[in-house]
């Protein structure tokens, strides 16, 4: 019995790829100006840099604008059904562990209809990468409230404003035990590439939330945290080993005051640089990353970068390799009797 992988027996050098090698002949059909283009760019750059044969990539998606991505990637791809990409990815990875499996999903696909699969993918920690395109709206069905739409957001399904509190995708991922958790905006190609690259190399499940601007149904919803002018004051870049400083002059920092993250201007009110929290994505306590994931609702800046990156048990199925003899023994079980050609019965029991 063989595991059906087509890996060659002799060591083979991985060809040097360019990004073009990862583009299929189908032209992407996203709206002009959509953040998915930049994200697709980042993903394919990470593929090029992975040092893995192209045929070993499999991109699995659900339903939604972002989930069309597999058609545009010149790899193996599977555009599955709404919300269920993690389940297909899981089976594919278990059947064929040599593959580099990526899940492409959105806020509606991954967190609403697919919420259950999302949390179980996170808790099982398979070596699967998840890119969650969060535009806070249902795009492909033309503009309904999504689980990440803010309270009061006016949408086609909530013309008087959404009455549902939104979900923070990364807190859900962390609550479920995710081992690599990151966020990037669709406007920062370099950060996008770095983070996706780190995700690609992580051993275990990786979730990267990309804030996507939906130019048609939710334009400029992330404007204040993505445009060049305001971004320095509204966001903080997470860099391992470095203090959580932000602002155009990096003169404000996040400190803990009465057990709460608080913004302090360095030098003012006795706030010192050494009081500023040093970013540690390997903090074994997920509470720290959880705190970061909740930031952004008041005066606290929205963090970008890698929130958490830890090493935990990676999902692996039991996989023995039985032979024909062993299988026959299994079929027979422990309680057998035999009949010979003369019809004589004897117990085979030991």
């Amino acid at each position, binding site marked *: 019995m063989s595991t*059906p992988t087509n890996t060659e027996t002799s060591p083979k050098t991985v060809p040097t790829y360019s990004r073009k090698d990862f583009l299929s002949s189908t032209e992407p059909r996203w709206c002009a100006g959509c953040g998915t283009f930049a994200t697709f760019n980042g993903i394919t750059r990470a593929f090029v840099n992975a040092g893995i044969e192209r045929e*070993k990539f499999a991109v699995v998606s659900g339903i939604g604008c972002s989930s069309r991505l597999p058609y545009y990637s010149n790899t193996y791809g599977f555009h599955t059904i709404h919300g*269920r990409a993690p389940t*297909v990815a899981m089976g594919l990875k*278990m*059947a064929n562990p040599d593959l580099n499996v990526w899940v492409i999903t959105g806020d509606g696909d991954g967190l609403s209809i697919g919420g259950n699969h999302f949390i179980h993918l996170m808790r099982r920690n398979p070596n699967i990468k998840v890119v969650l395109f969060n535009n806070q709206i249902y795009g492909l069905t033309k503009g309904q409230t999504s689980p990440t739409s803010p309270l009061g957001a006016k949408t086609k399904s909530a013309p008087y404003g959404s009455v549902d509190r939104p979900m923070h995708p990364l807190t859900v991922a962390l609550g479920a035990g995710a081992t690599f958790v990151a966020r990037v905006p669709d406007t920062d190609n370099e950060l996008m590439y770095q983070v996706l690259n780190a995700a690609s190399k992580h051993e275990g499940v990786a979730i990267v939330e990309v804030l996507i601007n939906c130019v048609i149904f939710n334009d400029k919803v992330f404007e204040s945290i993505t445009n060049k002018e305001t971004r320095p004051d509204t966001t903080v870049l997470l860099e391992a080993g470095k203090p959580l400083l932000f602002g155009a002059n990096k003169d404000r920092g996040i400190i803990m005051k009465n057990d709460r993250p608080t913004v302090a201007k360095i030098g003012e009110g006795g706030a010192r640089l050494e009081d500023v929290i040093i970013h540690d994505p390997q903090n074994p306590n997920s509470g720290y990353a959880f705190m970061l994931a909740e930031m952004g609702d008041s005066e606290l800046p929205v963090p970008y970068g890698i929130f958490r990156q830890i090493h935990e048990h990676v999902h692996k199925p039991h996989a023995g390799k039985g032979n024909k003899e062993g*299988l026959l023994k299994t079929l027979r079980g422990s309680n057998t009797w035999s009949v010979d050609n003369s*019809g004589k*019965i004897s117990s085979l029991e030991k």
Partner: protein
Amino acid sequence: MQENNVQYSSGSKPTELIDSSVIRLGGDSGDGMQLVGDLFTNTCAIFGDYFATLPDYPSEIRAPAGTIFGVSGFQLCIGGSEVFTPGDMYDTLIAMNPAALKVNLPQVRKGGTVIINEDAFIPKNLEKAGYTENPLDQSETWKNYRLVRVPMTSATQNLLSDLPLSSKEADRCKNFFALGVLLWLYNRSPEYSRKWMTKKFERKADILKANMRTFEGGLQFGETCAALNHRWNLKKSGPAPKAGVYRNITGNQAAAMGLMAAAERSGLRLFLGSYPITPATDIMHELSKYPDFATVFQAEDEIAGIGSAIGAAFGGALAATNTSGPGFSLKSEFMNLAVMTELPLVIIDVQRAGPSTGIPTKTEQSDMMQAMFGRHGESPMVVMAASTPKDCFDTAVEASRIALKYMTPVIMLSEGYLGNGSEVWRVPELDELPSFPAKFRTDPTNFKPYERDPETLARPWAIPGTPGLEHRLGGLEKLDGAGTVSQDGPNHEKMTHLRAAKVAKVAQDIPKTEVYGHPEAELLVLGWGGTAGVIKSAVRNLSGQGYKVACAHIRYLNPLPPDLESLLKKYKKVLLPELNSGQLWYRLRAELLINTEKLNKMQGQPFRIDEIESKIKSLLGAH
């Protein structure tokens, strides 16, 4: 006749030779009747007896002790020649308490033996069972039966009084007393049970001693009890069984074994994506024991169960998922994805009484229409049904073979009655099974993901990891051949026809439908699924008596066997018994324009032989 008419014999009482016997064990869920049944069955197996068993348990794990709804049962039919069903009317009943007597007595045949645990007939238990008077005192009732009153609880306590056991622990041993009585009654050797106990309790000396002593007490009771004035031996008749290795197997175990065997015959790794659901879970339990032969994924829900299986199929595994009605509904959207992407997949539905949660532990054949039509769009799938517990093995192998040959999802219908029931199975040598090595496409020259094999209309299976064959699958309609996304109307119509044509092609793999019974039959009893045994028993009995009746049983429900129409037209009348309100009946009218006589039952229980027989008699008229 077999040469070795093995009979165990010891003791002094006379023995009577019988063809077969139906035994029913009834007690509280915690009384250990299942274990007594298993040990007795295995003993019979080693004697070369034929048998069929049916555990019958409530959906509560430990329902309140002593109540009617807490009664758990184990039924078996043993015979000296081939046995097709666990039987209808009981020849012997063991009732551990008043509730078990109340539930089961109506099914005991006149003259049958009723063994009761006398000590359990106390006012509290009588009241729980709804008896206003102690039924043991009603001499009128017992004129029709051989009543054997056994002080099982007190005898057990007395036997164990010098052992350091609590009275609760001692009480738990009483099922071995019952086992001892039963083995004595059927003149079967106690050796197997002794060995089993010795091994099972090897590290618990006191428990071993207690169970053993209780067991011997039961055997001794048979010898000394005046009411047990004779015992039975089975008459060995019919042809000797085919040479080989035999075992007892349930339908769910057999389905699991069939999938593993199919993986070996196809050279693939088996993957099962599953979620617990009664009565299908034992398939997952079984496969989970053998990581050498199966990768089992206990998914977060039914949908993830099939989703992971589809992912595994994409990845080149022999993929399967198993479930029962409610889970079958949940899987339907993914079944469509398997139809659209034309991936091989086996979906096993162990049917139970529905709709909704229904009666989870009771059997029915009511998902056939859903298997056929319960999906959105036009979504044809191959459907086949297992007919006996051991046939679950062959059907699982066949479902896998068809799925791989035609690159299509296949639904295998089983039933709670088959999944939990067991019978004697001759374990085949693997080389006796068909060989169907899976072929992966590896050549990138002119590769088209939806190019078709003209024989089977199967598309190529190109799995991730193969250089140069990178392609995308998905639920969007595919362009014929190229397999790219297509929204073109005429192409969609063409693909709809192609998907249907592919399933229809499977007809070329269906063997001739076999007929059993009277050579000049006027009435054909047609069956599918778990009614096979009961129909065959009824037809065997009646054709033997000269009734012009025969039967045929079909495994393939979609496509239907190509010879079915001409076969049915040969008979004046066709009777179609189903454990639903007429689902195959409806299809035969719709697809073949053939009107059959219905016989339907939806009581969570299989047909009884006499129910089929009386319908046959009424259709054939006076004999």
